[in-house]
């Protein structure tokens, strides 16, 4: 976690203190915490537990139940491959495997150098563009395997340009 | 915006905001609307057909003729003289500022030529009278 950690916790506290009621607020608080920190490490979990006055085990139990929450920090470049049914029948698995091979990593992990996160997502609902992926929030639709290398290179080029 | 306090107030608002959407509502029901085509195409841009368009549109709007749509058409739509000499692909039919009016269910339009602001007013009031009569 970064040096301005204190400020981040303060932001979270301000949000929790402003809640009209703490009853049933856990999931929305976790949403906010993930917005602020980018992920939900142990420190954040225990902090939330204390603030809401519930056991840390309950926080952990809830956040591991929902796929939207993550306990690991994501990479600099985030590749999400839609694995909804429409994309699947149009070859999304091939796209995912191509990324796995080219980036030399497994799906749903972050690379050791922290440069890439590769995730298989549930439907993002843009079935007209199947198979579709999002890279750093930007979508690329109607992909074929050969497009993958170019997309990776474009990300790296942008990285180099910074 | 003050809050709506009754069904009547909501109704008044609906009348007001109908202006936003009436073009879309009417256009989706092409069988019952009257269409006024103002031919512009390439020649019309030079000959002032844009002024004709504005005049017609303003008249229709002023008369609140909801079921009348003012549409720009290519000049070929209004050109009944296919044998007219052509230069650089443009018809030189000798007529400008042509306006076609299609009433609902009618195949043949009423055709007007060289329509200026005064003529536009006449055409639109003619339509209004006819629609009124059909309605009654």
């Amino acid at each position, binding site marked *: 976690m970064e040096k301005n950690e204190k400020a981040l916790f303060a932001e979270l506290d301000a949000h929790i203190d402003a809640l009209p009621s703490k*009853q049933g*607020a856990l999931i929305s608080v*976790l949403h906010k915490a993930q917005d602020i920190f980018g992920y939900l490490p142990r420190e954040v979990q225990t902090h939330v537990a204390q603030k809401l006055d519930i056991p840390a085990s309950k926080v952990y*139990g*809830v956040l591991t*139940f*929902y*796929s*939207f*929450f993550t306990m690991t920090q994501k990479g600099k470049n985030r590749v999400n491959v839609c694995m909804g*049914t*429409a994309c699947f*029948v*149009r070859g999304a698995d*091939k796209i995912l*495997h191509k990324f796995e091979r080219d980036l030399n990593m497994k799906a749903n992990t972050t690379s050791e150098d922290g440069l890439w996160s590769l995730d298989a*997502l*549930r*439907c993002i*609902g843009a*079935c*007209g*563009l199947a198979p*579709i992926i999002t890279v750093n929030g930007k979508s690329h*639709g109607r992909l074929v*395997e050969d497009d993958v290398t170019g997309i990776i290179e474009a990300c790296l080029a942008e990285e180099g340009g910074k | *915006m003050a*809050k*709506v*306090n*009754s*069904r009547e107030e*909501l*109704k008044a*608002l*609906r009348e007001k*905001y*109908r202006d*936003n*959407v*009436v*073009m*879309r509502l*009417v*256009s*989706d029901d092409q069988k019952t609307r009257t269409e006024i085509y103002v031919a*512009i195409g*390439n020649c019309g*841009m030079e000959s002032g057909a844009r002024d004709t368009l504005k005049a017609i*549109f303003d008249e*229709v*709007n002023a008369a*609140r003729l*909801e079921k009348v749509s*003012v*549409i*720009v*058409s*290519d000049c070929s*739509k209004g050109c009944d003289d296919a044998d007219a000499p052509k230069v650089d692909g443009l018809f030189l039919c000798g007529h400008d500022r042509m306006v076609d009016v299609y009433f609902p269910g009618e195949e043949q339009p009423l055709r007007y030529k060289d329509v200026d602001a005064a003529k536009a007013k006449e055409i639109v009031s003619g339509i209004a009278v006819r629609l009124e009569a059909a309605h009654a």
Partner: protein
Amino acid sequence: MHKTRLQILICGGTGCISSGCLDVEEQLIASLEKHGIRDEVTIIKAGCFGFCEQGPIVKVYPDNTFYVKVHGDDCDELVSEHLLKGKHVDRLLFKSPITGESCHHHMDMAFYKTQLRIALMHCGMVDPENIEDYIGVGGYEALAKCLTEYTQQEIIDVVKASGLRGRGGAGFPTGNKWQFGLNNQNDKKYIICNADEGDPGAFMDRSIMEGDPHAVIEAMAIAGRAIGADEGVVYIRAEYPLAVNRLRIAIAQAEKYGMLGDNIMNSGFNFRVRVNLGAGAFVCGEETALINSLEGKRGEPRLRPPFPAQKGLWNQPTVNCNVETYACIPLIINRGPEWFKQYGTEKSPGTKVFALAGKINNVGLIEVPMGTTLREVIFEIGGGIPKGKKFKAIQTGGPSGGCICEKHLDVGVDFDTLTSIGSMMGSGGMIVMDEDDCMVNIAKFYLEFTVEESCGKCTPCRIGNTRMYEILDRITKGKGKPEDLVELRELGQTIKDASLCGLGNTAPNPVLSTLNYFMDEYEAHVLHGKCPAGACKDLVNFVITDKCIACSLCAKVCPVNCIHPTGSETPNGKKRFVIDHEACIKCGACLPKCPPKIGAIIKE
């Protein structure tokens, strides 16, 4: 009357945003300014028009021209030729795949011709971020009517008489649900809108919220009035940021206009709506799991009874319907139950929205009367299967539904017919599959989904589905045994019978339905070690035949360098290439690289 001579609607749904509609809007404005006619045109970013395959879509009013696949750099031509001179930009018009003719009007397209829009009536027609548009088309009139003309019971009677059934899954009659909500006396009651659209490949609820959010809000208020609730919650997927945003805007506007809040339209009725984000759990589509999630807990289903209408959110009486169901309500109130009932079938009145996707030409969102046949949906509206391939199956109902084969294509779709042929309506996802799809592999895909999404509360679902998945995995790898097929059936039936909630009750459907209709494919895998569709990697080999001219194109793309020139000689004396099957990972990258006129690489 009209503020401007022209209105241009740009589809602003998620699909069209992905295909670049925001750039279209920007370039269009720039071009209008350049030509000096910005003041003649109103630009409206509307909700989904449905024809996602052809996005971004731009509609020009009043002449009603429907442009498809419009990109930013097309805008200048659109302005200078069409808007100024009245010449349609022919290359941007939709071309009929049959006649090749350009279609100007959307009703000329086979995709729209047989559709009937009720839930989607105003979607793609009004500006979803502007309540004035909604009021202009008669919005909130139904709420006003319920507040001034009808008693609570009368509202429910209208809904009952319409025969409306819940669009989210099993098709429970909405009016009856509301009746239970009214009958359970309590000071505090809740209305929930289930917008946790979890079926992969279904996006109708999202499109409704993006395109016509006020219809949902109005209907929730009507439901609140009917049962006597003063609080409504929309439980929506966090993965739908655009829908969340539009819903929040719509709620704020409705409050400002007094359509939500205290003493609505001076009737003494109070109602508020808030948005609650889900966090990615398919099981939360089940209403009791959803309620647990709303309370900040793990989304595990509760035992029923008590039903939510008795003890729901915070143990208070709660009525929960899904987005599409709500979207039908204002029109039913305004136009009457008889109007609604004239469409659809006797037991399933009205229309249904389907998300048509997969191996189909016209991917998109469609709404048709109940009872429309699958054949019409696939081959008329959907435009058939791409690349001249053969239709194999259509999957309805997402992970809870089943695969339907060719022989049932003439069945008219409604809640009961789909159940009778081993599938279900679900939320209305329809995924079309062609000859290249292996049905065993598809069943495995759905099971993998269920295994991951099972909440783990009850054993048949948690363990039974995992065992089924393992068997399917084995079969797709060529290690299946004949008795596996018997076991799949028995296990599937047990899970259906013994699970607590709808997820477990329906999870085996994809397997059982494919076992019923595509037994030959299972047998091919188990008995002959073959995948007829060529989709199961372990049962497929890539082989280079003697047609090889030793050009080496295939070897260059092989990611694992397993293609080497070690074969027989070509007439030119070069060594043909051979794939080392030990090293091959069967990625298939070599296949498209072999020039089609050579065609030396084949899949066995």
